[in-house]
C-alpha cells in the first residue's frame, strides 16, 4: 500500500547502544554510516555515526518495519527531527556511565518533545549495575520538570529480551492511547 511507512527510531548519546539495540532485532545486519571520529577528546570511540543506522523487520503483510538509529551528538539534531517524522515511536537510550547523563536526556527530551509527550517514547537506562547514580528517580524528576510522563526502565541492550521489553513498553502505551481514542469516538 503506497505511502505507509512503519518506523521506529532509536536515539541517545554515543555509546548508549543504539546500533546494538537495532542489531538485536533487525533481520539484516544494520547498515551504518560510521566515519572516523576526529574528536577523540570528547569521545574515545574510533568511529562516529553521522547520518543513521538502519535495520528492518518484515511483517506478515510483506511491509517492512524500519529501524533507524540516530547520530548521538547534538550537532546532528537535524537528523533526529528528520528521522522522527512519521515514526511510530522513539526509544531513547541513556548511558548512565557518562559524566552527565541527565544533561544528555535534556537534549533528547527537547528534540523529541512531541513524540515523548504523546506517549510514544520509552527511556532505557543502561549500565545501571555498574553506575547506579543517577537513579531512575532523578530521570523521573527531570521528566516531571518537563511536565511529561514517560516510562523509564533499566536495560542492557546487549540482551535481546531487554530490547524487546523496551518495545513492549512502547507499544503498550500506544495501544492504551488507541483504546482511549476508540472509547472517545464511541462516546
Amino acid at each position, binding site marked *: 500500500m503506497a505511502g*505507509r*511507512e*512503519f518506523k521506529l527510531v532509536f536515539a541517545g548519546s554515543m555509546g548508549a547502544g543504539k546500533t546494538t539495540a537495532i542489531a538485536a*532485532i533487525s533481520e539484516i545486519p544494520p547498515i551504518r554510516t560510521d566515519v572516523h571520529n576526529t574528536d577523540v577528546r570528547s569521545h574515545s570511540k574510533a568511529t562516529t555515526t553521522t547520518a543513521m543506522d538502519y535495520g528492518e*523487520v*518484515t*511483517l*506478515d*503483510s510483506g*511491509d517492512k*518495519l524500519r529501524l533507524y538509529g540516530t547520530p548521538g551528538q547534538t550537532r546532528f539534531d537535524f537528523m533526529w*527531527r528528520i528521522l*522522527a*517524522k*512519521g*515514526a*511510530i*515511536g522513539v526509544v531513547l537510550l541513556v548511558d548512565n556511565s557518562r559524566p552527565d547523563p541527565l544533561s544528555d536526556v535534556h537534549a533528547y527530551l527537547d528534540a*523529541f518533545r*512531541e*513524540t515523548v*509527550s*504523546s*506517549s*510514544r517514547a520509552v527511556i*532505557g*537506562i543502561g549500565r545501571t549495575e555498574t553506575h547506579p*547514580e*543517577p*537513579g*531512575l*528517580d*532523578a530521570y*523521573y*524528576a527531570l521528566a*516531571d*520538570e518537563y*511536565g511529561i*510522563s514517560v*516510562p*523509564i*526502565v*533499566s*536495560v542492557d541492550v546487549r540482551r535481546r529480551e*531487554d530490547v*524487546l*521489553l523496551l*518495545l*513492549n*513498553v512502547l*507499544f*503498550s*502505551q*500506544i*495501544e*492504551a*492511547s*488507541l*483504546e*482511549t481514542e476508540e472509547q472517545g469516538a464511541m462516546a
Partner: protein
Amino acid sequence: MEVARADPSMLAVSCQRTVTTIGLPARKEQLIRSMLLAVNARTTDRWTFADGLEADVAICDVDSRLAAVAVARQERDGRPHCVWLAGDTAEAPIGPRLEDPIGSSSLIALLESVSTTLRRRPAPAATSAPVAPPVVAADAGVGGRTALDVALMLRDLLLHGSSDTFQITAGALQLRVVPSRRAVRASQPLTDDYLARLLDPAANGGRIERLAEPDRALTLLHAPSDVETLWRAGLVAGGDALAAPLHADAPIGLARWPDFGRLPHAPAHVQMAARLSRRPHRVEELVTAVGRPAREVRAFVNACVLCGLVSPQLAASREPRPTATAAATARPAYIGMGILRSIRTALGLGGL
C-alpha cells in the same frame, strides 16, 4: 530479641537522613551540598545529599513545577519535608521557609527541626491517611493482620530510614533490613514460595522485630534489592484487598512505571502500567481492559503501592495536550491495533 515499639523518640542513636533540592540553580544546589558536609558535625542526625523525592527534606524553588509533585508526595507519605527557599521579599507558598541567602545556622536549625519532628512521629512516617499499622508489640496478637499488612510494615520501616536492623522471622525463614542503608538480606533466594511463607502472619506473628544487636555484616546470604523485595512482596501478599488508603471504587493512577528491567513481571503488568500511567482506572475497569482476574490486578496495584509508584490523587488525566507543532511528528493515522499486532508477531513479542 527486643521487640520494636512504635516510639521512634526512644531512639538514642543518630539516624541517617537525606536532603535534596528541587528546581534550584546548580550553584545553589552545590552550595547546599557543601554546607551539608560542613554542618554535619553540629547536627543530631547524619545528613547527606541525595537525588530524588525519597529524601527526608526537599529544599524547593517556589517556581518549580516539580515542587508541587514533592508537596503531593509529602501529603501522601509524610515525606519529603518540603521547605521553600525564598529571599526576603519573595512570595512562597505556605510552609517552612529557608531564607536565601542560606546561612549555616539557619540550615542547622532547619535540619534539627526536621530531626525532632521525625523522632516524635510514630512509625509509619506518613501522617495523613493511615497506611498500615506500625511495628507491633509482641502482645498485640496476630488478629486480623494479613500478609499485605506485614508487607506494608516492611515498606514503612524502609521509608523511616532507621539505622537499626529489623527482622521478620517465620520458622526457619528470615529477612533482615537496615532501612538507613536500604539493605535487605534473606535466608533464601527471593522466591514466591519463600515470601509467601515469610509474610504469613500465622508464621511470623504479624510483627517485625528490631534486633538488639545491629547486624552490621548482614550475615544472611541473599541480597535482593529493597525495591525487588517490596515488589515481589506485593505480588505474593495476595490480591484479596487493596492496600490502604486505596479502595475498589476510587480511581488509581501510576505516578511512575515499575522498573520492569529489574523487576519480574507478567505481560499483563506492562499493559496495566500503560493504562494506569495514562489515566486513573478503577480496579473493575482495569480488569476489563486487560482481561485478567481482579485478584491479579489488585496484586499488581499492591506491588506498585509498596514501591511508592501509585498516586491515588492522580485525578487529572495525563493524556497529552495537542500543540501547534504536534502535527509534524504526530503518529501516522494508519498506525492502528492491527499493525501493532503484526509488529508484535514479527518480533515475537506477543500481546494481550
